């Protein structure tokens, strides 16, 4: 990899291991298929198409690839959920609806290296037996959608897509499907409903597990952009070899997107678990802004529970137990889960001591209230309620008891909704109330407590008619 030159000022950090992002910011690189082919592009597809589909799935399983979309579910296992004696068509959908606040990795893959994704998808389709695949790309990436369509057309011309690919008789069409600005379309069943032309209301599971009853009620695999790209590299390196990067059960590389109060926010492809949060912030992002101290970190996209800077975390069991500070958290799935948060989609949001936590949680609650699809009761009513409470907290019109109510509303949503949006919307509030309770209460006005008890006085105070 040493021969690859990157654009000046955008060179990867020494801690990085660039696999997926190998070509991002590469000097004299463009998204055309010619460039891609000169760099050994589509070799892995050729290799994979010589294999049995089952072998590919086995390799992905061996590699231990965990989904990069947010839940971290093993991709190989997901594929193996396809019904064994299936006579319906199988579909593969690439989830490029990157909409988790704090995450911005897929846009670079799509914009700069679209063929990597197409190759990864072609291999995955071959593995699961899908002849029709869609890339569900968010509407806010208009350029990305065009780049992908151009790339698909190129791949078609070169015979990597279409009928009888590489002489194997395998047929595959990939189409780009643009969303229209809804976070819920990142949820796989919501995405499927959207792709079916309906309101993207997530489906109930059971019975609508996509692997059995997905798009058009046929078996469907939905994977994230980054996950599908990894499939190409797993074939290239072999599952066993691939799994040697990263740490056990948290294999491979993944892209961490850092935003917020650091000197140099950006994206970093690192081996999972090999970089700690401290290294990420201080070494790779140039540390916090001058004179500022770390206050809080959201480690895996806005839905992940917040970590407080002065927290300590107990890891391991019994004798192996050790206590670590926030700086020492390795950025992998299992450790972050053990710390009470999650690796999610890899979006790390850093907040320094200049930030008001009331303002931060209000901003997030605004997002979730806006994005709730409104299908099921808890999230529909609860997300707006939480927003309204934090609106008042920020405006200084809340009483201390409102903070308890805020937490109660979040707990009323958590675990009781159709899809994971319920958790996504309630976890930030739950964690901010748990960890920054004093600060939130400090933003309230105890004198208002009486006013709320006396609704008549409140109405008068609010000048309501």
């Amino acid at each position: 990899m040493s021969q690859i030159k990157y654009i000046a000022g955008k060179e990867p950090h020494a801690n990085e291991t660039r696999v997926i992002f190998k070509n991002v910011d590469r000097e004299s690189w463009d998204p055309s298929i010619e460039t891609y082919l000169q760099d050994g592009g589509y070799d892995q597809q050729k290799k994979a198409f010589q294999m049995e589909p089952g072998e590919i799935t086995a390799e992905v399983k061996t590699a231990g690839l965990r989904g990069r979309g947010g839940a971290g579910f093993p991709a190989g296992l997901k594929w193996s959920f396809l019904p064994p004696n299936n006579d319906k068509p199988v579909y593969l959908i690439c989830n490029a609806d990157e909409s988790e606040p704090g995450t911005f990795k897929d846009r670079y893959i799509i914009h700069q290296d679209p063929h990597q994704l197409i190759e990864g998808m072609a291999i995955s389709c071959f593995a699961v037996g899908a002849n029709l695949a869609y890339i569900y790309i968010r509407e806010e990436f208009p350029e990305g959608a065009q780049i992908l369509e151009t790339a698909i057309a190129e791949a078609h011309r070169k015979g990597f897509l279409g009928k009888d690919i590489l002489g194997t008789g395998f047929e595959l069409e990939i189409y780009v499907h643009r969303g229209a600005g809804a976070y819920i379309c990142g949820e796989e069943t919501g995405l499927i409903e959207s792709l079916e032309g309906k309101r993207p209301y997530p489906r109930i599971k059971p019975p609508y597990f996509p692997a059995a009853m997905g798009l058009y009620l046929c078996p469907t695999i939905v994977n994230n952009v980054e996950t599908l790209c990894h499939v190409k590299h797993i074939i290239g390196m072999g599952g066993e070899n691939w799994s040697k990067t990263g740490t056990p059960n948290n294999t491979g590389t993944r892209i961490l997107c850092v935003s917020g109060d650091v000197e140099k926010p950006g994206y970093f492809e690192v081996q999972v678990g090999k970089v700690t949060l401290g290294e990420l912030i201080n070494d790779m992002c140039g540390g916090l802004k001058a004179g500022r101290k770390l206050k809080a970190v959201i480690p895996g996209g806005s839905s992940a529970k917040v970590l407080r800077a002065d927290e300590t975390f107990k890891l391991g069991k019994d004798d192996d137990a050790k206590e670590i500070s926030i700086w020492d958290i390795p950025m992998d799935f299992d450790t972050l889960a053990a710390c009470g948060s999650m690796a999610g989609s890899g979006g790390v949001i850093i907040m320094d001591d200049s930030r008001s936590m009331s303002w931060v949680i209000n901003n997030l609650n605004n997002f979730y209230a806006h994005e709730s699809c409104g299908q099921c009761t808890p999230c529909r009513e609860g997300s707006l309620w939480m927003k309204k409470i934090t609106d008042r907290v920020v405006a200084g019109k809340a009483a201390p008891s409102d903070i308890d109510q805020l937490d109660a509303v979040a707990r009323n949503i958590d675990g009781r909704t159709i899809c994971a949006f319920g958790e996504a919307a309630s976890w930030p509030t739950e964690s901010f109330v748990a960890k920054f309770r004093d600060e939130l209460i400090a933003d309230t006005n105890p004198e208002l407590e009486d006013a709320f008890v006396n609704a008549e006085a409140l109405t008068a105070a609010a000048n309501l008619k």
Partner: protein
Amino acid sequence: MAIVVDRPKLKWWEHLYLPALAKGLRITLGHFFKMLRGNTKVTMQYPEEKWDANLPDHYRGAPALVTDEQERERCVACQLCEFICPPRAITIKPEEIPSDDKWAKVEKRPKVFDIDMIRCIYCGFCEEVCPEQAIYLRKDYAITGTSREEMVHDKEKLYEIGGVRVGLVNKWNALK
């Protein structure tokens, strides 16, 4: 068993009745002078005068409908009072408020609201059950009439007795 009461046997001066007359006049004159000094109570001129001022706050007189400070009929014809009324004295016929009415957003009001005061037992259940704070027992206690029809208080009469009652009704509290 009958009780026999013996008549008192009167003395001769008692037969004259003059001492009794004098005794009576003495009392009357005593009251007369007390009255001149302002030391006596005078009989209330009922029915021109009434007891209202002396009635306790919880007194349960005739039920009546009230309007709010904006002259809105508080009653929305939910018919709960009709339901709860033990002697079934209340009859309500609801109607939709026309869309051009100032209070069209309330949607519903009583078209007919009758309370049969011959039946009413002044129990106060109607006041207690009313979710809109629209019906109250006022202090009127002498409900009279010369026919059964007159004893049925219609909507107009009920508002006449009831008058205006200020204060918040939950329904119109934007926070409820």
